[in-house]
């Protein structure tokens, strides 16, 4: 008996040793657990493995279901945790007003190692955020200052700044010390860059380092920050001497009574400010801060382009009107009522007819006739309702999916517009003449780009739905540079420089209607190739989806004079596999670069 007890006790102890506290979990939602509701919200999860190496999936489940709809989203991220490692995973998730909790568990080899439920009650705020990222975290703005109207200040640690631009939806202004800004990792930097170009206000304070900027700022680079005359009276706070007069006139921050205090650059709808003072040091002694924040309050536009795509914060009506051309045959309420009324009338007539024939000997013939009619007429109605010949409905942006990732399998980069769609109506749907090109989900797993080259999409008022469609032109153009040259024999050589962070292994060149193979390109590398070798009339990507996309774009691509470099990326920029009940997610994109002529050699 004693032996048994000891064995059981030892077994219990070993079990405890195996499972307890090997994996430490900590989560921060929003900014210091403060988040705006009904918007994409950052979620940082810290995992620390003090036991043996683990490999598994972190699963996050958000439930924003209401009576009207089910919105359960499951986010999975594969995680490897070597022994003794610690990782911080950054995601952005929707935190709706209905959300009460977020479930988070780690699954490794079929075992759930922890299962935490984060309570969200009453944490969601209505205001937007001003993020102050500085070791001296106090902006000292008076509570009645206009910049704090509908905004609150949060002081996140720089390591916990989100790595996805969508997670900055609730942020209007980021005030960051320059040294910290330059220490952000690439993902954080790119996320802030995208956020700012979409309408954010980024203020970078001088800090102590006099070295030149390690990083370019947003699409616009502030000029004039060279050594020169130093502001009188403020030089003790200034670590980066500023030649005020070298700043282009339109980019100076001029405060009444103080003069030029910094540089500002508008970038898209966003605003970048550089002020060469150390905020925390100067604040106590310089009374120009009130004016400065006044300037920012005037500059920070309340109507930002990157609003939440959840539920219904912005109007989609114009977009719907554009893509949802309800044709005459699409059954509106009245049409449907009319149709059903006719059906009821027909059935009444048939039944009366049968009733009158009730005594006839061959009643079964009449009944068979009635059944045949009852089959044929619904067939005709069904054909009218479901056939794409009569149906022009149903295409809208797949908001949440696009928004979640920036790209999505139901979104497509067309010209400078990221267009996405979702739908589950018919297997093939025709488009109205107002539609130029759009990706459709042909069935649950396949997508098709419908493209009509003769039509224009420019008529869409982008501003009214820019929250749903991201202008990606700048980032697209910066992916690759391509140049071609023609020698005296007429051979064409093409040089492509991959400026992106992506390894482009699916590449091709389209020239005069023919596809040529091109070499894979490492990030930052350049390749030159003569246009010869394997030629095909069809694209030859390994992924059939890319082939379909390229073929659909063929009419417009082949209309160019020079070669066109095409590269397909199929990777997940955030390494998140996104599953929604109704669809699975894979991320892809197609880079299309028209080669410039280098000149005749």
């Amino acid at each position, binding site marked *: 008996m004693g032996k048994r007890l000891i064995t059981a006790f030892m077994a219990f102890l070993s079990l405890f040793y195996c499972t307890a506290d090997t994996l430490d979990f900590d989560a921060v939602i929003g900014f210091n657990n403060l988040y705006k509701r009904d918007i994409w919200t950052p979620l940082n999860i810290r995992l620390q493995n003090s036991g043996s190496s683990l490999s598994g999936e972190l699963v996050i489940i958000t439930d924003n279901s209401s009576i*009207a*709809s*089910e*919105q359960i989203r499951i986010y999975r991220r594969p995680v490897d945790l070597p022994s003794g490692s610690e990782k911080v995973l950054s995601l952005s998730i929707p935190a709706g007003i209905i959300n009460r909790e977020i479930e988070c568990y780690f699954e490794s080899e079929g075992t759930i190692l922890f299962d935490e439920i984060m309570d969200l009650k009453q944490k969601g705020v209505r205001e937007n955020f001003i993020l102050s990222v500085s070791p001296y975290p106090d902006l000292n703005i008076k509570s009645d200052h206009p910049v704090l109207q509908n905004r609150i200040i949060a002081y996140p640690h720089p390591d916990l700044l989100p790595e996805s631009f969508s997670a900055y939806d609730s942020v209007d202004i980021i005030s960051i010390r320059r040294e910290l800004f330059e220490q952000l990792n690439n993902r954080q930097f790119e996320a802030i860059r995208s956020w700012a170009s979409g309408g954010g206000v980024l203020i970078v304070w001088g800090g102590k380092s006099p070295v030149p900027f390690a990083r370019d700022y947003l699409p616009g680079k502030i000029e004039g920050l060279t050594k020169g005359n130093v502001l009188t009276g403020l030089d003790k706070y200034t670590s980066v001497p500023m030649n005020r007069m070298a700043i282009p006139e339109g980019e100076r921050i001029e405060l009444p009574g103080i003069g030029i205090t910094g540089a500002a650059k508008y970038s898209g709808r966003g605003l970048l400010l550089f002020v060469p003072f150390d905020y925390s040091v100067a604040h106590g002694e310089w009374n120009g801060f009130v004016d400065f924040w006044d300037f920012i309050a005037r500059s920070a536009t309340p109507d930002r382009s990157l609003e939440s795509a959840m*539920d*219904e914060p912005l109007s*989609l009506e114009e*977009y*719907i009107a554009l*893509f*949802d051309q*309800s044709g005459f045959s*699409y*059954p509106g*309420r009245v049409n*449907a*009522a009319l*149709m*059903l*009324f006719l*059906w*009821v009338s027909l*059935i*009444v007539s048939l*039944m009366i007819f*049968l*009733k009158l024939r*009730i005594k006839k000997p061959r*009643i*079964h013939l009449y*009944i068979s006739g009635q*059944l045949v009619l*009852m*089959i044929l*007429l*619904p067939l005709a*109605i*069904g054909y009218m*309702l*479901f056939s794409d010949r009569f*149906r022009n*409905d*149903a*295409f*809208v*942006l*797949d*908001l*949440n999916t696009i928004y979640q990732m920036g790209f999505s399998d139901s979104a497509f980069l067309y010209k400078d517009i990221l267009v996405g769609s*979702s*739908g*589950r*109506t*018919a*297997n093939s749907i025709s488009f109205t003449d107002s539609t130029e090109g759009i990706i459709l989900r042909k*069935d*649950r*797993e396949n997508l098709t780009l419908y493209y009509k080259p003769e039509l224009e999409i420019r008529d869409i008022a982008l501003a009214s739905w820019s929250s749903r469609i991201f202008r990606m032109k700048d980032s697209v153009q910066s992916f690759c540079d391509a140049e071609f040259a023609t020698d005296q024999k007429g051979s064409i050589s093409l040089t492509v420089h991959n400026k992106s962070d992506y390894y482009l292994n699916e590449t091709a060149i389209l020239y005069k209607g023919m596809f040529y193979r091109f070499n894979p390109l490492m990030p930052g590398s350049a390749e030159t190739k003569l246009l010869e070798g394997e030629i095909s009339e069809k694209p030859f990507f390994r992924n059939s989806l890319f082939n379909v996309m390229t073929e659909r774009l063929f009419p417009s691509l082949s209309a160019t004079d020079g070669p066109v470099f095409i590269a397909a990326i199929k990777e997940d920029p955030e390494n998140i596999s996104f599953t929604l*009940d*109704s669809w699975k997610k894979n991320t892809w994109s197609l880079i299309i670069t028209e080669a410039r002529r280098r000149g005749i050699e």
Partner: protein
Amino acid sequence: MNNPLLEEQIRESFLNSSMMKIHLIGLAAISFMIFLFYPTQPLSYFLARSVEPEMFNIAVYTIFAFMAYLSVKTSIFNIHEAAIIGLKEWSDFGKLPGYRYLRGLLAYGLFYTAFLNLLFLPCLLVSASVSGIAPANFLAILAVLYLFTMDIYLAGTLLFVLFGKPYWFLTLILWFSLVVTVLIIPLMLSAKLPFLLFIELQKSTNVSSDIRLPIAIFLIAAFLLIFSARLAIFQFDRSRDGR
């Protein structure tokens, strides 16, 4: 139409004035309900918000409940209002062998359930089209709906054969238990049940494989019900012959 029971059923039950009234009023009411609940926004409006229009669910469950009631009522009450003739009467006066009696019941069941499904087909089509149900998924739902009503009819038939006489409370119990099963069970159990099929099949990405199991279940249920009814009639024949 060489089965006298089938002919009698059609003349006395199917073409019976009150049954016709029930059919027509039901059809008119459901059509009106569709008009009433018809979404005021196009499908894209809902998809844009990740909300699925509920029109089809409303229609399919209402129609299902109505069809289930009519199937049960028809099968248990057999011939409606006119002389309701039980198994014993047919046997005594009609001199109809048991297997022909059962065949007549089954033939009428096939016909009547087909009629009911066709009757509401346009309503389902309209609601499916505004709810974004793909045609393949719609056909799958339709197949399940037909088999379901057929099984309900067979269940009613079995009860009728077992009890030999129509009882209104049997109709009520059977119908109520079905409706409760269909409507309540999905709320309590989240596992994939045949009763959830109407919802599951709307979202199915692989209809052809997803529908196999439920169809097999419904067909097995149908065969079991027919077999049981045949057994009951066989027992009845034996007891009558022995008498």
